[in-house]
Structure formats: C-alpha cells, structure tokens
C-alpha cells in the first residue's frame, strides 16, 4: 500500500478517529453520522462517500467488524480489540500534540506577559 496510508503507520485520520470512537458502541452508518454531529455540536460532519470508504478501510484493517447478522440495508459495526487499542494509542498521540502546543504557546505568553 501507499506510504502515506495513515492506517499503515498506525495513525488515524480525523474521519477514522471519529468513526472508530463512535463504534465503541455498535452502530450503523446513519447513527455514526448522528453521533459525530451531536458529539461535535455539528462542527465535524462526514460526507457519505467518505463514510463508506473509511468504514470499508477500517473493516479491511480489522479495526472494526460487522455486528449481528448484517441483514437489511443498514449494517451495524463495532470496534474490535485491535481497533480499541489503536484508538487509545491515537488519543495519546493527540494528547501529546495538544500538550506540546500548549507548552509552546504558554511560554510565548509568559514572555509577552
């Protein structure tokens, strides 16, 4: 696969992050969309093509799996153990980023203040 493929490097794109986060509980596509919009107060929304593509990607990487018999037009998915581990790892990575950013900005603030 391509080198810029974020799943291969163990990093989640923002879209994968929010989908995986929503699939801590079993949900189908429409509920994932609703959950993300509620969670982010409409600040982050995922287009249907991005939703479809990302879900297929997470499935083939075994980060999520189908939940239940999968009959009907809306399939339900849930995060796998592998998916939950990667989510936790990515949360730490993002926390670190915020930590670094705050450090730099606070120092700058101290100098200015």
């Amino acid at each position, binding site marked *: 696969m391509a080198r810029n493929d974020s799943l291969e490097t163990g990093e989640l*794109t923002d879209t994968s992050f929010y989908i995986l986060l929503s699939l801590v509980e079993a949900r189908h596509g429409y509920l994932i969309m609703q959950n993300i919009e509620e969670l982010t107060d409409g600040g982050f*929304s995922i287009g249907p093509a991005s939703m479809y593509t990302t879900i297929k*990607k997470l499935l083939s990487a075994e980060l999520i799996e189908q939940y239940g018999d999968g009959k009907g037009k809306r399939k339900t998915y849930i995060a796998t153990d592998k998916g939950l581990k990667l989510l936790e790892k990515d949360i730490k990575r993002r926390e670190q980023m915020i930590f670094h950013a705050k450090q730099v900005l606070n120092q700058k603030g101290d100098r200015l203040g």
Partner: protein
Amino acid sequence: MKKRIFRLFFAWQDQAEEKWLTEMAEQGFHFSKYKFGLYTFKKAEAADYVYKLDYKGSSDQDLEEYVTFFEDAGWEHVDRFHGWHYFRKVKNGSEEEPVIYSDRHSESQKYKSLVNFLIPIFLMTVAIFLTIIVPNRPNASMIEVMKWLYIVLISMYVFAIVRVRLKVRKLQK
C-alpha cells in the same frame, strides 16, 4: 419532455461533469440517465441541485448499503454507469455546497480505485500495440510467445466472464 445530449468527459473531468449537470438543472433540465456519453434530461422547473459523481470500484455486493449511506445523508441516487454513480441533492441557499467526500484521504481512494480500473485497460492496449508492431520484426520466437500469451489471456477472460455472469444469473433468480 426529454432532452438527449451527447457529451464526452474524460475520467479526470468528473468535477467538470458535476458542474455541467448542476448548470443544466439551473435551466430546468434534470439529469436522469447516462449511457456511453449520452445524457438524458427531463424538462421541469429549474432547481438548485448539486450533482456529485462517485466512483465505486468494488463489487456490487454492498451496493444497497452504499446507496443507503448517501440516502441517509439526503442524497438521491440518480443513475450509475459501470463504477460511476450519480448523486444529487437540493441545495439550500444559505447552506455551504454539500459534499460527498469530507476529507482528502478518503477522496484519494476514489481516484485510486479508478486508476486500478484503468491500468488493465492500458495494459491490454499496450498488448495490442505490441502485436501490431512485433510481426514486422523477423523475430519468430517472439510471435510464438505472444501467441501463447494471448491464448492464455483469452481463455482466462472467457472463463472469468462466464463465471461472473453465472454469479449474476444466480443472484437474479
């Protein structure tokens, strides 16, 4: 009233095609069908539709699920031609232009699977080109190799097409 227009767009001109369909809708011609460069429009009231094209390279096994993702987000599946799917949505004046891809990463997948479709066609074209050029050379063994290569390729294709069609028939029962 129906209006048919013949127009060709290349594989990389999907955004130009979306724009054209959107402009046609502004004039009251609503896209309904596409086949081999032939667009069918239905004349009705002008509407603020936004058209989007998606390329789905994977099998139709999950087509219903795929279309439902779009319908749940308010998109109407208008038509499809091979891997290309045409969607439209009414645009509310105040709203931002609706998108079907909200991030670059997943959008790149669309074009990746399109390239995966174009590569075998390209290779076939190269093979045809080589067979036209090769006979002019006095290298008989090369022709012999090509001959066998073709026999294998043709058998594989016949086999593949028959098998896939059997699957279709089975599913349509």
